[in-house]
């Protein structure tokens, strides 16, 4: 461990290797990636298709296991946890926003937001959740079913749910992939505000430079390796960097 970090990390992976399959057909989705996601930061992971960005997120979030290397949430090393502990860790310390299928269709908006808390059997912090509902602006929709909401509204509910348990880190996987630009902008703004106003940590996988521009920092992945980092990104800068990947090598 030679990396010296001034800030505490909410999540990090060290020498992460992920190999799918065996023998000739094996694919190295992650090939020795070390990256940490500091507390209170909004980090975007970018890269072309097949670069391993989703795999990185899944492994960092405890949804998938590494072939070698380590993944940590806070100070907890994930490979030592069995399925049950991993589940409890996700429930209590991690939040998720996915591209689609983010909500349970049989539950109301309010129930979806408190789902992780209900699964844990706790009450959660009522004031915090109340504030969240106002932040995502869905107070008048609390008793609706997901099917009665627009895509943007559904994603805002997902964001509220992700933050409801006051997790150490929220992972977002292409949260705007299914949304039009205006709704997408709202959701990204929401994520950004959550980080800056409540000192939460968000890690977002995206392939959209405009989305990445909402982040504090962008890390670039290609062929399973970390190839670049960019502080204070703008859409143009990110787009230029991405174009470099498309040059046939």
């Amino acid at each position, binding site marked *: 461990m030679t990396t010296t970090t001034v800030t505490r990390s909410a999540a990090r992976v060290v020498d992460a290797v992920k190999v799918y399959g065996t023998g000739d057909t094996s694919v190295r989705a992650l090939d020795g990636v070390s990256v940490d996601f500091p507390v209170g930061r909004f980090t975007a992971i970018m890269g072309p298709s097949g670069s391993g960005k989703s795999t990185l997120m899944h492994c960092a979030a405890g949804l998938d296991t590494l072939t070698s290397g380590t993944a940590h949430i806070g100070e907890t090393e994930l490979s030592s946890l069995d399925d049950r502990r991993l589940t409890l860790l996700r*429930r209590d310390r991690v939040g998720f926003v996915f591209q689609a299928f983010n909500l349970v269709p049989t539950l109301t908006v309010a129930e979806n937001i408190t789902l992780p808390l209900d699964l844990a059997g706790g009450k959660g912090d009522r004031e915090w959740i109340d504030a969240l509902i106002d932040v995502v602006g869905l107070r008048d929709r609390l008793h609706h079913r997901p099917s009665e909401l627009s895509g943007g509204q559904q994603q805002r509910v997902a964001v509220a749910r992700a933050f409801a348990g006051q997790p150490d880190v929220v992972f977002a996987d292409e949260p705007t992939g299914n949304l039009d630009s205006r709704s997408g902008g709202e959701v990204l703004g929401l994520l950004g505000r959550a980080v800056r106003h409540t000192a939460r940590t968000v890690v977002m996988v995206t392939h959209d430079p405009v989305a990445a521009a909402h982040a504090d920092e962008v890390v670039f992945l290609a062929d399973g390796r970390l190839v670049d980092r960019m502080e204070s990104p703008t859409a143009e800068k990110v787009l230029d960097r991405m174009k470099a990947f498309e040059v046939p090598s």
Partner: protein
Amino acid sequence: MSAMNASVRLSLSSLRAHKRRFAGTFLAVFLGVAFLTGTLVMGDTLRAGFDTMFGNATSGTDAVVRSADAITTPGESEGVREPVDTDLVTTIEKVPGVAAAAPDIQGAGQLVGRNGDPIGGQGPPTLAGNWIADPELNAYQLAEGRAPQKSGEVVIDRGTAERGDLNIGDTTTLRTPDPVKVTVVGLATFGGEDGMAQVTFTGMTRADAEKYLTAGPGEAASIQVRAGPGVTQQELVDKLDPVLPKGVEAITGQESAEENTDMISSQFLTLFTTFLLVFSGVALLVATFSIHNTFAIVVAQRTRENALLRALGASRRQVTASTLVEATAVAVTASLAGLAGGIGIAAGLQALFPAIGFPFPESHLVISALSMALPLAVGVVVCLGSALLPAARAGRTAPLAALRETAVDTSAASRLRAVTGLGLLALAVGVTLSGVLVTPSLWLAGTGAVLALAAFVALGPVASTTAVRILGGPLDRLRGVTGGLARRNALRSPKRTAATTGALMIGVAVVSLFTVFGASLKATMDQTVSRSFAGDVAVSTPSFGAGGSGLSPRLADAVQRLPEVDTAVGLGRGVAEVDGKGRALTVTDPVALERTFDLGNVRGSLRDLGTDGIAITEKEADKQHLTTGDTTQLTFTDGRQQTFTVRAVYGQSELAGDYVITRDAWAPHRTQDADTLLAVSFKDGVSTEAGQAAVEKVAGQYGNPEVQTRDEYAQSSAGGIDMMLTLVYALLALAVLIALLGIANTLTLAIHERTRELGLLRAVGQTRSQLRAMVRWESVLVAAFGTVGGLTLGAFLGWVLVKASDGASDSTFAFAMPPLQLAVVALVGLTAGALAGLRPARRAARLDVLRAIATE
């Protein structure tokens, strides 16, 4: 043609891919077909066996001379015939072409085994007769020892000898029903077998037979005739006809053998065929639900695939055909397996019968084309019929559906369905109630029952929403978010929930119906005995079947003489035609009858019936417009007619019968005297134990019939019902098994459809055990809905059956709900739900979170 091949190929590949999904369908069709095949093969085999046996036994008899007319009372298959005059034998012997003729005297005679217990009598008849010296005319062949030569010597069939542990030289009692001391001098076989199934036979000298088995000498049940060389059976009959007096007929030996085969194989088969056919029916009924549901699911799941086919140019018919081909493949496979299973059942029973002391005539399994074709056809038709609707729905898939997300029909039940269902229900209740309460009719009630079933099926989706909401109400509180999710999942697709539970509902309904009916029958028996039997103990012959020789009429007199006894009344049974219809008469001492039985409200007097008076129940009197003082014609089995005056009309009939005449009135027409029941009441101050002991002592001298207290008597009357209920629970197990597979199927499908959602739940922190619990609870809820529906339907139908029987028959039926048994049925249903959920829950828990949430 090649397009057709494409749809065949598609269906077969989809079958291979989803073998497990068809397990429930397969099992249901398999069982239904197997039971049906088993029944048919078993029937053919038994018949063939008996045919051979009777053919062998009576091959020497070319013609049988007997009375032409038989009086048949309601509920009896075999009529009672007037005896023929034995003087006819000499007339017949003189007919050219007759080689020999012998009278066949037949009556009831029950042997007592070495251990003092009577042999047989639990159904098959216990016969006694004269030992016919001519070995060709005698159906029994002497196997060991010699023929009876003097009074008291008998030949018995070997099977009976083995059952009673009797050997040549042994002395035992023959109940005719008067106890006769007999010595076994020979053992006989019947048609090469040890006996004629479970029928017991005792052959005595002709003098003994005439003395004990007939009212007087000179009477025989029939005359067996053997033809001379070169005379066919038909020629013999033609020659005999002219010399026979009016009312006497001759039939060929072959006809007689066939009649015997029919009689005995129907007696044998009734129990087993009824049992197997009910099983088969329930299995097939449940199968229709299971098949329909499975295919509905398959079609729903394949919406996009079918839509793509349609978009690519497949015709509506091709898509429908591919589903039907799939159904046919399942139907044929399951039916063929069922045929094999049915043959197995028949073979098993054939092997089992001898092992439980039930001689089964030796025969190879007879497998006819019909007993193969019919079950196969039924299996395929049921399967295809049930798949028809889903197949048509598949054909209607719009090509555009390929572009939409996999559509699950979550639409709530339509208003039309609710209205139709409620209309049906109202109609069902109306028809039933009028069939039960207004104009009692089993037909009307039956129609109502079928309508009620239809209404339940139609209303299923409507009711499932409300029912699951109510049943699952406590889950939210008890199981938190897991329970709440389970409840809402069960509510997602009301139609599917209803269809899934259909099989379970039917199964539970059938079982509850029988449970309620059985309990009601028991209550009825209990009530009958406690209401109309005023005696302290009863001496009776076995309550089921006409077997046994009955009780000696002299037993009543002997018991009456006991110092402990106040009244002992024997009830004999006579047969006569009243008003042109065969009726059972109660032959007894009417005065004593009135003292020991509560006859209800009596008009007129039972005191002076004399030899030309009769007492009738109110019900029968009303039917025939008779009242005290009127006269009615009775025709007896001896062909004589006599006018009787109605001297009394009484209210209750259950144990006393509908028609009562005195022993004196019956005496001229009697054949072999026997009482079926002896009711005894003790003098004041005599304890039941002391009285019972005294009666038992006397009964010991009369062949040792069973002496029961009132309660024991009531219980033994209801004994057969428990056996029926045991069979019904086997039926429950079967239906539940099929239903269980159906529920598991649906859940597995639902889990497949909800892969993403389950992945999401796992991602945001649902533990595996929480996920398993969620699926299991959904399963239990669905099962609870089916169970409650089935219980309601079954209890209602049970009530209808009891009430309709009450209204339509002469006897009064009591209605009883057995809470314990019904609770057990409910528990079994719920447990089935929990079990059905196990595998799908395990599967769901194994789900890979990443795969589940991966987009596309």
